[in-house]
């Protein structure tokens, strides 16, 4: 059954197994327009596996993924036209300049009026002075900003951010968070955001999903969820999910 077109992202009964090991175990969730959803969990919980499946670079064992109602397994190119991502483990080629990288990916994403869009993004992410600099010689924080600029090239309806502020200083990280919140507020897009910074998650996300051993254990508002489970903070809740998931009980 096709997913409702109102959801930016619809995940239904998604599984990924490697032999007997289930990396993602029957998860279902959605991202709605103007919503930032945090995907949280300890290392190895299945966050990146989930993101890779949404990006079409990893095939699910079973289940369905629809981006704006378009099934990625059937219409991959159409679904990914309105999607983009930034991840610390996927830097842009270091042997091209910032401007060259953005132009090449702008063409791949078939961005209309690309020259104008490039200028906007170079300004927005404070990259004007680096436009002729090869990405490989930028600092990790600057490279992250280039990746974010690439992720915004096509004004995606679904933006996937895998620890987008991991290598940024606090001031730049705050600017990036603000900029992404503005992006979400100004359009109809949604964001799936992974982070290990619980302060950031509380500041940015409208809703969080706690993933552990491939399953979604908890879902809710990051500001009220800790209290619902008798924890003082989101970080404390995170640690419990990571170490003693069976002890979790709602108040």
């Amino acid at each position, binding site marked *: 059954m096709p997913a409702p077109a109102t959801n930016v992202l619809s995940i239904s009964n998604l599984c990924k197994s490697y032999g007997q090991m289930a990396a993602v175990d029957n998860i279902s969730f959605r991202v709605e327009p103007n919503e930032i959803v945090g995907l949280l969990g300890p290392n190895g919980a299945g966050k990146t596996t989930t993101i890779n499946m949404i990006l079409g670079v*990893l095939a699910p064992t079973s289940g369905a993924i629809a981006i704006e109602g378009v099934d990625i397994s059937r219409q991959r190119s159409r679904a990914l036209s309105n999607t983009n991502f930034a991840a610390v483990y996927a830097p842009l080629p270091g042997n091209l300049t910032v401007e060259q990288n953005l*132009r090449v990916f702008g063409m791949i994403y078939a961005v209309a009026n690309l020259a104008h869009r490039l200028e906007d993004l170079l300004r927005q992410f404070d990259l004007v002075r680096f436009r002729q600099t090869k990405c490989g010689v930028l600092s990790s924080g600057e490279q992250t900003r280039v990746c974010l600029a690439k992720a915004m090239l096509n004004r995606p309806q679904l933006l996937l951010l895998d620890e987008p502020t991991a290598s940024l200083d606090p001031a730049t990280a705050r600017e990036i968070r603000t900029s992404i919140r503005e992006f979400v507020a100004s359009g109809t897009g949604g964001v799936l955001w992974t982070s290990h910074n619980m302060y950031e998650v509380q500041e940015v996300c409208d809703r969080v999903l706690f993933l552990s051993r491939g399953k979604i254990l908890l879902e809710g508002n990051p500001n009220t969820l800790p209290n619902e489970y008798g924890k003082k903070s989101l970080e404390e809740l995170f640690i419990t999910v990571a170490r003693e998931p069976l002890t979790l009980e709602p108040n």
Partner: protein
Amino acid sequence: MRFSRIAAIVLRQYYLVRGSPSRILPMFVWVAIDIVLWGFITKYLTVISGSGFHFVPTLLGAVLLWDFLTRVMQGITMAFFEDVWSRNFLNVFASPISVPEYLAGLVATSICTSSLGLAVMVTVATLAFGLSFFAYGAMLAPFLFVLFLSGIALGIMGTAIVLRLGPAAEWFVWPIPAVLSPFVGVFYPLSTLPNWMRIISRALPPSYVFEGMRSVIAGHAVPAHTLAIGFGLAVLAILLACWFFVQVYRYAVETGLIARYSAETVS
């Protein structure tokens, strides 16, 4: 297929080549050295044999045509390796670009780079050693076309091998033309080969080109069906190479190979 996505792959390669002498020089230097080396060998053979045999169009022409095929293949594999070396697979394959668009971009890149290489080879062979392409007559165009198609097929096959086996497998790809050359009779008629090698030769499209080339130089006509078989086999080779690439790509998506490509994955 979207033209802008194909053009993006070509533009990326143009940016890389434009700013890098280490990428520009191999396009010209190795082929020029090959032509110079074989040019002198053919001159020497002409002098010592005194038989009136046309060594220049037979040997030097064969070297040039074989180098052309090799350049076409390397044009594809080099553009692909740029994504391997810069660990760019995730960015490329998580974008809307389709496999046919990506492969078309690699082929378009190869057309540009191999054309430059061919121009250099022809210039050196003509000016320095008096090789005249008029010796091949009207058959030159179909000869080049079959070799071009064969180079495309080998290039796509090579990229699929590296995608499946990992970055270190590029060393399986570089020697492919050298491995094939004894079978396709670049320098000698196929009748020179033992039977078992001739069976393999008949399945390889370039064999028909080099046999045809020798026929033309000897003053005989090339039977149309011979070239048609070469052309048909070359098209079949491209289809098989594309099919193989798609199978490897599907395997890579099934197993997560693309997402963690930098790892060695021979298994």
